[in-house]
């Protein structure tokens, strides 16, 4: 088979860093191969993808050196963030943008556009559809369609499903399997459950960007379990592994019983009813998983509970009626989906200290408490850094730390494990579990049926704003699209 893409002795260095990212890395890809690149966060998988396509150094200026290389004749690149790869407001215009770049005659465009859209399963009534009304999964399929307009020989995917719900993830990989049978496909992905049966070669990197394994999935998976575990890669069966190492603790009795009661509770956005709860309760030691499709109202539920949205009906915490954000602010902490939007100060230390300064705690207590939190969340070495300088996992831990600094009875979290690798996910989940076991209530929006199975005590399922309460021990509401396939 001819080689379509290769590097020999690749060296690459990011400006401002001391160490080389790759030191004499050599690898090559044959025509038609379906390759998965795995490795810990920050090992340079995405960078390698950009170098293989030529985006580095043509579009992204990073110095690199190599003895020899082959660039594919034609290639397409699908990026991670569905919101930052389009430049036009409408779906047809976005694909047309690519066709214009290729100087395709205008007369042929409408035909090509509808062909490409139906190829990726986006059967829009009118291709002139607003992209910002699309779900994440639809946006990524549009991205694939616009990349297919390039008629690529090689397709690069840089974590295309990191920001999607399970339904969108499945739709993406189904699409890729359909369209890429005869193409070379190189994929970087953390959530590998849905691609693994499509892949015929896996390359594993260590943290320094050196190849530690290269072969078919059947060879690589059994022999490299420990590395996968160490690097936080979502390998098949990672949850079974986790279950066997984790010590399961029954919910103990708590001396101080905390309780939330919701009765005929309604949440509004822009004066429209967006959320209804007939009756729901939560007590100390509850871990409530808020489930539902994207847009069903999970965030609305959390924002209603923290009283950032207008609500009506009964809402009591420990017998006290809650009517405004002031009533709840000392009782509840909130973790937003994007940690960066949650930071309000310039250092990790201040980020935690601010909660204690607000309560006018003494300098000593404050110092002591912050140090404890930093220790607990493994951020002690980062205390003087700006929150934005932290890694993805550190940012996530800090955002959780800021929410529990005041030791609130209730912790509300909006998909805190979104886009995190396995290591970070388990780190956050374990911190939350210990918080729950100390008698607090956790209410967390999540898509992940594994998290629900392993941690949740109750499930509040949201369908079109209507909340139904289910016991977690009973069968989990696994909608067709939400089921993991392994």
């Amino acid at each position, binding site marked *: 088979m001819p080689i379509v893409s290769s590097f020999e002795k690749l060296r690459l260095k990011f400006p401002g860093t001391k160490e080389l990212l790759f030191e004499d890395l050599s690898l090559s890809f044959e025509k038609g191969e379906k390759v998965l690149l795995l490795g810990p966060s920050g090992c340079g998988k995405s960078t390698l993808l950009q170098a293989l*396509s030529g*985006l580095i150094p*043509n*579009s*992204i200026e990073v110095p690199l050196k190599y003895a020899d290389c082959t660039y594919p004749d034609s290639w*397409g*690149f699908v*990026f991670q*963030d569905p*919101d*930052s*790869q*389009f*430049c*036009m*407001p*409408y779906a*047809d*215009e976005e694909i*047309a*943008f*690519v*066709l*214009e*770049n*290729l*100087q*395709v*005659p*205008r007369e042929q*465009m409408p035909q090509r556009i509808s062909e490409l859209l139906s190829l990726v399963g986006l059967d829009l009534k009118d291709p002139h559809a*607003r*992209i*910002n*009304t699309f779900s994440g999964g639809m946006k990524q399929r549009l991205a694939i369609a*616009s*990349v297919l307009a*390039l008629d690529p020989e090689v397709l690069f995917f840089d974590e295309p499903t990191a920001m999607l719900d399970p339904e969108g993830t499945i739709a993406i990989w189904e699409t890729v399997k359909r369209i890429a049978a005869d193409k070379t496909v190189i994929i970087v992905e953390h959530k590998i459950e849905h691609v693994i049966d499509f892949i015929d070669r896996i390359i594993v990197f260590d943290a320094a960007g050196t190849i530690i394994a290269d072969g078919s999935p059947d060879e690589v998976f059994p022999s490299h379990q420990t590395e996968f575990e160490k690097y936080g890669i979502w390998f098949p069966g990672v949850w079974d592994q986790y279950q066997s190492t984790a010590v399961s603790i029954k919910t103990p009795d708590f001396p101080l019983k905390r309780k939330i009661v919701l009765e005929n509770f309604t949440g509004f956005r*822009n004066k429209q009813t967006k959320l209804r709860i007939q009756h729901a309760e939560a007590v100390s030691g509850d871990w409530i998983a808020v489930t539902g499709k994207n847009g069903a109202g999970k965030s609305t539920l959390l*924002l209603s509970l*923290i009283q*950032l949205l207008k609500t009506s009906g009964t809402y009591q915490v420990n017998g006290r009626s809650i009517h405004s*954000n002031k009533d709840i*602010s000392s009782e509840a*902490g*909130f973790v*937003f989906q*994007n940690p*960066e*939007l*949650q*930071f*309000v100060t310039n250092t990790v230390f201040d980020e935690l200290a*601010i*909660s204690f300064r*607000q309560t006018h705690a003494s300098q000593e207590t404050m110092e002591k408490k912050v140090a404890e939190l930093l220790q607990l969340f493994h951020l002690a070495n980062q205390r003087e850094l700006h929150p*934005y300088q932290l890694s993805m996992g550190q940012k996530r831990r800090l955002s959780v730390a*800021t929410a529990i600094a005041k030791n609130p009875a209730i912790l509300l979290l909006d998909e805190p494990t979104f886009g995190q690798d396995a290591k970070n996910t388990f780190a956050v989940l374990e911190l939350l579990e210990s918080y729950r076991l100390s008698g607090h209530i956790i209410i967390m929006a999540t898509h992940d049926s594994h998290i629900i199975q392993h941690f949740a005590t109750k499930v509040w399922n949201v369908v079109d704003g209507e909340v139904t309460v289910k016991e977690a021990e009973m069968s989990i509401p696994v909608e067709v699209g939400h089921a993991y396939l392994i």
Partner: protein
Amino acid sequence: MPISFDHKMTWLHKINPSVKLVVLACLFVAVLFIHNPNVMVLFAIGPAILFLFFTGHPFKRILLFSIPFLLIFLSTSSSMILFGKGETTLFHWGLIDITVESLYRGMHLGFRAIIYAMLGLTFALTTSQVLLFYSLMQQLKLNPKYAYSFMAGIRLIPIMIEELTAIRYARMVRGIQNTYTVSGIFSSIKGYSIPLLSQSIRRAYRIAVAMEAKRFTDSRKRTYYYQLHFSRYDLLFIAYFGLFLLLVLSISGHYPLFPVVDVRSL
């Protein structure tokens, strides 16, 4: 939440956007040189007719959009009317000194502001931004690099609005109170702008890379999905304002509403 303004298509939508832009730019300059209040007041009728009846938007929305511009009219004219210089006093009370001169000048300024507002709004309400940039590339030879950058930039605005809401919520949850001292306002501005900017800069950079990955280059050689031409509507638009201007000039000459012909020489 997507913001959309559904509307009917009218002849104003069918005008070539570049023609519309150039005609309006000329009118902006022309209005600057109108010093005769008779002409100014009559001329305001022209844009008003288009703005009120031909944008294709529901009347309710038109009225809603008019509110801020009426405020501009009131504020620009009233400050001149109430505090302007003049000799023939009509009304005097404390600092307020309304004179005939200031009244004319104030009204004149107010009408100029409202003409600008109506022309600008009419343009905004009847022009699709995508078609505007396609037309600028095709008729006015704008470099595609800038045109597509602008279009990509416009896509970021609704995302930024969502992020702004998220930051506002986060600050409330974190117990950051907005204080209204100078340093307080400064720190709020910092609190909002740094995360917003950092997110937007990174997103803009990613979009740029994505655009290049889709083979967008510096080259001006490309085909266009939308081909824009000149049409009789362009002529109609030019003729509308041309004839209207002539009509206004002759009417104001023969039947002046006010005895003043130049607000500068009062």
